[in-house]
């Protein structure tokens, strides 16, 4: 039996595909969570008051100024130590859950700037008109500004999604189930890392290339309606 036949059994292929599914899931959850954080931080940055502005700035600068790997390890290894010291509460962190949260927090710092620039690119007169018809700032954002900012956000936003699919591989280091981790497990089992890693390469490419292809199509469709 060749190495190829030994490694690519149906069971192992399903094992790897499951890992790919987790990678996708982690990326989607982190993107959603990061978007909520990013929108809040973008509003904080644009706030007239100093406290929300400061909090948002510190968040963005700390996250963007430190390695993502460090943030993941801090949250995964540091979390239980901190809760033990403060609340005498010890827990075994779930690597997928904690990893997703860490990637989400990281992504939020990058989407903050994305949201902020897209929101600020909408004409100031739109805010003013909304104000004169009595809409609150939140209503204005939801009804008037974000729908117009959406088109401008879309291309870099999808790029962020692709970055997250790739970045989710960092979670292999804390043992979270995802594509790279699955490849690593098979590699160790069969003393052959090359073939599982090549499989992971192809799987990552299939995901990322398809998403960017879809994004280009969507962009063209949106451009037509202008």
């Amino acid at each position, binding site marked *: 039996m060749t190495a190829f036949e030994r490694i690519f059994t149906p069971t192992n292929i399903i094992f790897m595909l499951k890992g790919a599914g987790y990678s996708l899931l982690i990326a989607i959850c982190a993107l959603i969570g990061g978007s909520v954080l990013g929108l809040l931080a973008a509003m904080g940055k644009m706030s007239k008051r100093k406290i929300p502005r400061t909090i948002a700035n510190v968040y963005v600068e700390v996250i963007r100024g430190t390695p993502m790997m460090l943030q993941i390890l801090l949250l995964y290894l540091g979390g239980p130590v901190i809760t033990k010291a403060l609340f005498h509460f010890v827990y075994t962190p779930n690597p997928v859950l904690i990893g997703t949260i860490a990637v989400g927090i990281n992504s939020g710092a990058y989407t903050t700037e994305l949201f902020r620039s897209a929101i600020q690119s909408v*004409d100031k*007169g*739109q805010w*003013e*008109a*909304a*104000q*004169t*018809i*009595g*809409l*609150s700032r939140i*209503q204005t954002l939801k*009804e*008037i500004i974000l*729908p*117009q900012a959406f088109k401008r956000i879309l291309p870099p936003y999808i790029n962020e999604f692709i970055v997250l699919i790739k970045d989710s591989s960092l979670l292999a280091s804390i043992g979270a189930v995802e594509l790279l981790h699955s490849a690593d497990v098979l590699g160790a089992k069969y003393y052959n890392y090359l073939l599982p890693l090549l499989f992971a390469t192809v799987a990552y490419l299939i995901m990322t290339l398809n998403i960017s292809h879809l994004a280009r199509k969507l962009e063209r469709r949106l451009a037509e309606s202008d």
Partner: protein
Amino acid sequence: MINAVHISKHFGSIKAVDDCSLHIRKGEVICIIGPSGSGKSTLIRCLHGLEIPDSGELYVNGKKIDFTRDTTKELSHIGFVFQLFNLFPHKTVLENLTLGPIKAGGVPEKDAVETARKLLARVGLTDKENAYPAQLSGGQKQRVAIARALCQSPEVILFDEPTSALDPEMIGEVLNVMKELADDGMTLAVVTHEMGFARKVATRVIFVDNGKIVEEGTPDQIFDNPQSDRLKLFLSQVIHM
């Protein structure tokens, strides 16, 4: 109705509005005229909190407006029409009109739509309710903007150079709508360069220069018997023939 007392507004070292007091009474049609950059737009924007005055006080129906808080709700019964229309491009004409009453005013959608249709008819745009702003001419856009302001059931409508961004042949249709509002007894305050409109429709004309109210009076007083040299010079430059 609206009473601005000793209002000032600076932009950096420039005094855009310098200690202006302006009392708009019910039923008045006030035209604010003056050279470009004289501060007349800033003055009218201060009356709706679009610019926050550095000093001075603003009273609406006797109640002092506190600009340190959110004044949006408090001032939503003052209509405002912008020079560049500021319609919402991703919403239809009808949605532009009903958004405020439904979202901010708590009006049921059916009632808001009914009112909006009546007001669209009033500005002569019944057939455009499903159009998007990009499909309208400048004059039509401004008439939609006026209808949107009317949807707030305003006690007064403020206009910031409503015809300055229009092609000449579209100015008339917008001014006609404004004149009809005035004839119906609506209170208006209009920053404008249309001297013919000011002379014919205004009950009071205010001349602003360098951020100060230099002279005010009836159209006859202002146009036929100007007192200050500055106003005489301004009129000689803007009124041709």
